[in-house]
């Protein structure tokens, strides 16, 4: 599936919820099921700045696709990064670079989209894209 298709899926799933509580409960579920980063990659280098909670993201090439794993010490943050990883992992670096993040808005997490937000969603997206740019150069 393309990033766009996955994002559509996510939007569909979230559209079933009536209120923020269900959305957050689902996000917490997603957080709990996040494919965990290996302990050795929980380094300061992989730590994303600008979050109130700690978030580590690791990236690895699998063929020409980039695979992300992540963890956080806060469960809601983990849910957010889980959604991002679902949308962006296992994709070609160039596609990750080109992807937009409007689906965040559409699944009712708009309040997290401001760059000044303490949860660092914007920093996370930035970090995923930075990885993509780095590996893109490596692929060439």
């Amino acid at each position, binding site marked *: 599936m393309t990033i766009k298709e996955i994002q559509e899926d996510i939007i569909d799933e979230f559209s079933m919820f009536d209120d*923020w*509580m269900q959305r*957050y*409960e689902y996000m*917490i579920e997603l957080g709990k099921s996040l494919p965990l980063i290996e302990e050795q990659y929980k380094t300061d280098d992989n730590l994303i700045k600008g979050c*109130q*909670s*700690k978030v580590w993201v690791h990236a690895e090439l699998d063929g020409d696709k980039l695979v992300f794993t992540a963890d956080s*010490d*806060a*469960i*809601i*943050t983990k849910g957010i990064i889980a959604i991002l990883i679902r949308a962006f992992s296992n994709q070609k670096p160039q596609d990750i670079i080109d992807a937009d993040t409007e689906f965040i808005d559409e699944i009712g997490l708009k309040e997290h989209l401001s760059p000044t937000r*303490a*949860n660092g969603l914007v920093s996370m997206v930035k970090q995923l894209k930075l990885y993509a740019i780095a590996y893109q150069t490596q692929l060439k």
Partner: protein
Amino acid sequence: MVTKTLDIQKIRKDFPILQREVNGKPLVYLDNAATSQTPQQVIDVIVDYYQRYNANIHRGVHTLSQEATDAYEAARHKIQKHFNIAHSHEVIFTSGTTQSINLVATGFTSFLEEGDEILVSAMEHHSNIVPWQMLCERTGAILRVIPMNLDGELVMEAFHKLLSNKTKLVFCNHVSNALGTINPIKEIIDAAHKVGAAVLIDGAQAAAHIKADLQALDVDFYTVSAHKMCGPTGVGILYGKEEWLKKLPPYQGGGEMIAEVTFEKTTYADLPHKFEAGTPNICGGIAFGAALDYMNGIGLDVIARYEDELVQYATEQLLTIKGLKIYGTAAHKTSVISFNIEGIHPYDIGTIVDKLGIAVRTGHHCAQPIMDFYEIPGTVRASFSFYNTKEEVDKLVEGVKRAKDMLL
């Protein structure tokens, strides 16, 4: 004897922001330790300033300038009176506690020698740590930490042992913003003076709850931020004893703080102007005075009694939640409850209760050393003001329970 009590419904009407909704729920504002809310009486003073007599102060001959100067200086006198300060020129207007502390820390550069010691309490706000670290770097002085116990109280025996004739400065907050502990500052001041050390007390967190008598305390420096006591952002004071303020070099150079300027030589103005370079936060200073008027209209003793009840109630109610642990259980504390629930990150709780309209702060509260001490990433902090109610406490407890259910 009639004990004055507080008409909470009347008071809440003074605060327009308390009428608003957040996420469709009535706002429950419990982040007062970060910034207090502003009553309409203070907002009116701000509006009146800009609508009627906004002008640059001092040296102005025209009416507007003289009116603004009078109002600004009247605010200085209100502050003087409120804190029982001997001279109005011992009240230095600053942009807030952080600047007040930096002014002193920078000024002490020439007073310290390598090997001199500075004592700092283990529960300081970063604003009362970093400037002194920078001072130590400049001078070779050594920072020594007064330890605290698990209740969040300073270990006073250790403090007395740390004191020596090498001690030049002691600094400590009056009330800890992260734990709510009221520190035994009178004991600290007296003991420090015995070895000839100066004492700076960071009153940022205390001022909204305790009316400090600075002459009785005999403290050398005391700092306050207006935005934590119903005043506006961007203004605060440094109190300094006259003898210290005379000794300290000026902090910033600029207009107002000079007597004569030539390119060869500049002589500095008298107190307080020596430390008030440039156009000050004129409206801010005046509104700060209005905030004191407002709080004194209710009475700080009345406020303290009411808040103590509230905090006690909140403590009891929160402790009914299983797994909830309060950090900061000092015998003397005020208005702050810092807590965590086992297995849950404070950020998660803050996020969920925000959805319910409840504003608490989460994180290290600019006091990382305290978090390191307890080996936690941060806490959830509910901090109370006199306009909060028991019903709001109930909503907080309700919200935390709901968050716990969702998150565990």
